[in-house]
């Protein structure tokens, strides 16, 4: 059942990538809040912080220091959140090498695998697919 998009979370260790993706989203004029964090640990902290609205679209990078994308998902699966099933997670990676794919393709919580960078077309198709 599709829900309405509330906000977007960008998880990537490279500030340039987060900036770029934010700009793309801004250009799409979605008028939705975009938050950025730099690794899995910060992402978990963000998601569990009371004052934050839990975003239902997350763009997740794979290679990040201290806790990479795969490790984040493992931790995320153990999180107790409201409407967790409504949260759509898209993995954005610079490479989708066979080696990387092997590491993550089993993860159920990831709804989509895409190669960076995020483009307007990609964004539109995701919105159409998963949201009202």
């Amino acid at each position, binding site marked *: 059942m599709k829900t309405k998009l509330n906000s977007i979370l960008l998880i990537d*260790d490279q500030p340039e990538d987060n900036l770029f993706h934010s700009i793309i989203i801004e250009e799409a004029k979605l008028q939705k809040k975009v938050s950025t964090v730099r690794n899995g640990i910060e992402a978990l902290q963000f998601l569990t912080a009371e004052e934050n609205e839990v975003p239902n679209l997350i763009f997740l990078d794979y*290679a990040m220091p*201290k806790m990479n994308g795969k490790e984040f998902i493992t931790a995320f699966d153990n999180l107790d959140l409201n409407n967790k099933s409504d949260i759509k997670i898209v993995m954005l990676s610079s490479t989708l090498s066979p080696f990387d794919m092997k590491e993550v393709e089993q993860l159920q919580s990831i709804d989509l695998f895409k190669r960076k960078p995020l483009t307007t077309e990609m964004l539109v198709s995701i919105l159409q697919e998963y949201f009202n």
Partner: protein
Amino acid sequence: MKTKNVLNLSNTQNAYKSLIKHSTVGQLILHLDGKIIISNQAFLDLLSLTLSEIQLKTFWNSDFQTNRTESLQNFQTLLDSDKQCVDFEKEYAHKAGHTIWVNESVHKVYSPNQKLECILVMAVDITTAKCKYKKLKESESYLMRATEHTSAIITILDLDGTVKYVNHVVEGININEYVGSSVYKWLPKELSNSVKTNISEIKEHKQTIQFESKFEDPTRQIHYHFHDMSPIFTNSKVSGVTFVSSDISTLKNLEENLDRSKSLVELGMEAAEMGVWEWDSKEDKLIWDETVHQLLGTDSKTFVSTFQNFLSLIEESDRKIIASQNKQAFESKEIYEGHFRIIKKIDGQLRWIGYKSKFTSSDNEERTRLLGVVWDSTKERERELNRIKSKTLEKQNIELKQFAYLASHDLKSPLLTISSYSSLLLDKHQNMLDAKANTFLVIINKAAERMQTQIKDLLDYSLIGQNKKDVSINCIQLMKEVRDNLSYSIKESNCTFDIAALPIIQGYKTELSLLFQNIISNAIKYGSESIAPHIIIRCQKENKFWKFEIQDNGIGIEEQYLSRIFLLFERLHFQDEYEGTGIGLAHCKKIVELHGGEIWATSKPLKGTSFHFTLRA
């Protein structure tokens, strides 16, 4: 009472006449001038003549004489000398044309008053005897020649040991002295005794005795002889002994050599763990030695050695080849070799068995016997397979290295373009760009820089171990050079060192330099904000390795990350916190492993980190 031989003259004459007439010995009465007066029948029969043919003919001139000159001479000689008779062996010509041999004796006959009256000739046919004698002489000469030429010494001995005959003597002995002497005088003591004993044995048992003897000559050379002593019979009694001796020294030596060779071969086969087998195809009989059974895992006591049974031991997939090779072997002369797999019944192990075989029969004979060896070639096969594997790996490795090099090389150019032009924009066209544009350009430039570093590090990583110059390195000297390389950051950070005695090790200089440099530059980079970095380097010998420890007082690493840091591209911090490509420690790991060692880290967050690694001593 003995009757007196009273004969009056006339009676003697008659008796005499009768004697001559009926004698089987040919007799002639000759005049003193040689004319034949009387001949008896026997003489005429000798030559198939009639009386009229010889009567009153001159004896020495007669047709039956083959050498008249000689005959006359002999006659004359007799008459002239005091001799009463002479006899010769001579040839007479038979009327039929052939010659006969006669023993002719010529006697002077006197009248009662001692006056020479006439000559009496007696002739006995000795042709047969002469022939026999000739033949005998002939075979004797053949025998002589034969016995002379053989290398064996043939001696005829009397029962008391006297040498009756010898074909030839040993060098240095006079044959004339030898023949007729006692053989015991000449033989070595032991042999002498044997001969003596054997002669009495032969005399008693009338059978041949064969035996060997050994003799050491003055030059310390050993000679071996083979003797054959057999009885000589005269009237069914042993009258002498034939003693034949042959020198078998060469043969004996060959025999000994053969035995020795055989032992060596057996020893060799045992050491090499090779089994020998023989296959008689006509009877389908396989002959295996114990080793073959061991190798093939069969019981020599129970296994029925036929070709089929042998085939059944072999792995199914290999059977066909073996069977067909076997068939081919009959058609050509080549040596057959190869390997097949078996699963040993005894322990169920899979082993590779190597074999080599060849036909033993000569070219002309029908091929029936195959002779070969087998051995366990499992290790050989494994080695071969490993060799092929490592060759493939090596090839792949080289390709990979080439690829890494080419890729990074080709990436540098467009990268440079990006850097150059974005720098250009930043430097020269700042005025025309708004704040956002500027930010973007800075980001572009920084990213390009990072990429360059990344490529360089990647390239360096791929080249580790390429320069295979294993040299002797003084680590103290090495540390000096490393500190020189890092002099800027050392000075900047006020970094201090505490370095213990360092050894001299065998290794790759560039790589070891990088190892120390990476760890030390990390120690400085990840130093505490409040205190200056202080680095302690220790080293001690552990078994066959040198164990190093480089301890810093930096920010430390959390335990959960201690093993991850050595992974390629793994970082624990953001680019803007601490710049880096995440290759450094992966580098270090590769270098340490190149030197046969291991690397690991220990740490207390905020207290500092220690990097430990071992290098081959």
